[in-house]
């Protein structure tokens, strides 16, 4: 009880300093939570595009980005013909721009593609998709920002297309995207008889190893990965996740420096008090526990405050119309646990030097300290 009070008393004695430290940790945690959650949401959405009603993704081996992957139509046709394959859908990814929007994701797909089958059709009909060579289907969000409706002409890149349908999907990239018939997309992006990837669903999941080995033997320049495997290994995702944790980590490091500063000041301003405790029998470990307890309390209060701020900020992001569908605010418990653990470790690390300093205080000298 007194031990706890000794911790609290010192934090309350310097309220402003304690609050600044807590704020440092809180904003670091909020920043980390926001960045990691937004980027993980983005990764999840992109993965969702690829795994729509499929189990496996086939793409060109050793490409750094799927936009640079090139898979021949022959490969798509051959793979679709294998008996173990239920369906194989070639998808061509492209980036286009309109007058107000520099980046719009474009999907070249077949009319059988799951994205069209599963989407809610707000306007138009899927049966028209393959018929019109200059026709495009817009995601609902894309239709809003392109101010397009069924039948209207939209300028996309260097071409003009007619809107033959508007669909609603839960995925932000798809909802803000443009869907072209595969042949049109191949022509538009100058990728004749090619797609970026083939998304594949097998009749039986147990055949996945066999399928991978068939792809390897028939198409040595291609690689087949299960969806989860792809999400884990795709270098762009790895870079995004690493960046998110690194940026968040830098924030926490700054917060940790704030805690270190607070704890150093805390020790320096009560050298005499620590000496009194030592004279009264406090051991090195008890002194260190007190210092670590203080910093841990700052870190935990900061982390909890940061989680609240971060969560509120994420929900605010979700409410911004321009970001609708692009920000997944599903906060993963694992992320929360990692963030709290990192904040706690940062706080403890920040108290390391002050604790060592406090343990080295010689009572007889410190009692002369005014």
């Amino acid at each position: 009880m007194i031990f706890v009070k000794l911790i609290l008393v010192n934090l309350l004695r310097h309220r402003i300093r304690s609050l600044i430290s807590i704020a440092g940790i809180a904003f670091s945690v909020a920043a980390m939570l926001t960045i990691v959650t937004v980027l993980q949401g983005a990764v999840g959405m992109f993965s969702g595009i690829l795994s729509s009603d499929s189990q496996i993704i086939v793409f060109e081996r050793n490409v750094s980005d799927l936009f640079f992957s090139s898979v021949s139509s022959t490969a798509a046709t051959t793979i679709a013909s294998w008996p173990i394959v239920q369906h194989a859908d070639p998808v061509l990814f492209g980036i286009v721009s309109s007058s107000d929007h520099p980046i719009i994701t474009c999907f070249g797909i077949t009319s059988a593609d799951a994205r069209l089958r599963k989407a809610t059709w707000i306007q138009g009909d899927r049966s028209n998709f393959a018929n019109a060579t200059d026709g495009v289907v817009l995601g609902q969000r894309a239709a809003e920002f392109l101010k397009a409706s069924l039948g209207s002409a939209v300028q996309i890149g260097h071409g003009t297309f007619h809107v033959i349908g508007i669909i609603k999907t839960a995925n932000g990239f798809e909802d803000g995207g443009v869907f072209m018939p595969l042949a049109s997309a191949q022509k538009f992006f100058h990728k004749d008889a090619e797609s970026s990837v083939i998304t594949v669903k097998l009749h039986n999941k147990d055949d996945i190893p066999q399928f991978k080995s068939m792809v390897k033997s028939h198409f040595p320049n291609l690689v087949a990965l299960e969806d989860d495997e792809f999400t884990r290994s795709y270098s762009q995702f790895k870079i995004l996740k690493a960046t998110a944790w690194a940026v968040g980590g830098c924030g926490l490091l700054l917060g940790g420096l704030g805690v270190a500063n607070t704890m150093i000041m805390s020790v320096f301003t009560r050298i005499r008090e620590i000496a009194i405790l030592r004279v009264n029998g406090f051991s090195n470990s008890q002194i260190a526990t007190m210092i670590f307890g203080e910093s841990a309390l700052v870190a935990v209060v900061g982390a909890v405050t940061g989680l609240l701020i971060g969560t509120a900020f994420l929900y605010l992001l979700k409410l911004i119309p321009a970001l609708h569908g692009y920000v997944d605010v599903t906060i993963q418990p694992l992320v929360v646990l990692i963030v709290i653990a990192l904040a706690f470790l940062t706080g403890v690390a920040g108290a390391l030097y002050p604790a060592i300093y406090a343990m080295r205080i010689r009572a007889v000298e410190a009692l002369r300290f005014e």
Partner: protein
Amino acid sequence: MTPPTSIPAAAPVVLRAQDVWKSYDQGAITVLNGVDFVAGKGETVALCGPSGCGKSTLLHLLGGLDEPDRGLISVNSVEINRHTNPLRLLRYEVGFVFQLHNLIPDLTLQENCLIPTVAAGVPRPTALARLQDLAERTGLGHRLHQRIQKLSGGERQRTALCRALMNKPRILLADEPTGSLDEKTSSVIFNLLLDIVAKEGVTLVMATHDRALAQRCDRLVEMRDGRIHEPQPL
């Protein structure tokens, strides 16, 4: 009755300093020059002498607050300067009272007094019972939950005395315990101090400038220039 000038032969030695040397500033200032000192069980000893003669330094060494450059310090026959943490070793053996009360101002009287028991891991009910007893004897029973800032100088020093005795130490080292108090309060506190150490059989070694107080101890040890002079007949 005249107090004895040296330790009674029958009293077992509880504190011993043997050929103790201490200097500061890398030998530039020598404070103790081969001091030999003993204190027996239940004895009250006054260390007297001019400022800078080494009284406080000797007390600090006897209580494990500092280490001698040379020589041996033993408490209850244990050589404390061979231990890495003598303060921890002595938490049950030695209590300290300083000229400045050295209490933690944000805590209450009770909380300040419980600090040594927390350090020593004494169960809270036991510690509270001991505090209640000491507080009653020192007239602080009604002030237990007062913050230190609200206590008078005499009450603070009585609190410091209670704190020093919480773990029932066998030795009490007091460095000018009444030095910051007025004459009347000083006398009250000293009476209290002598009363408690007598009733609890505690050995008291006290550094003081106050000859009148010193003469009320069992023995007066005169220090000068870092050395102990022969005990003065009182």
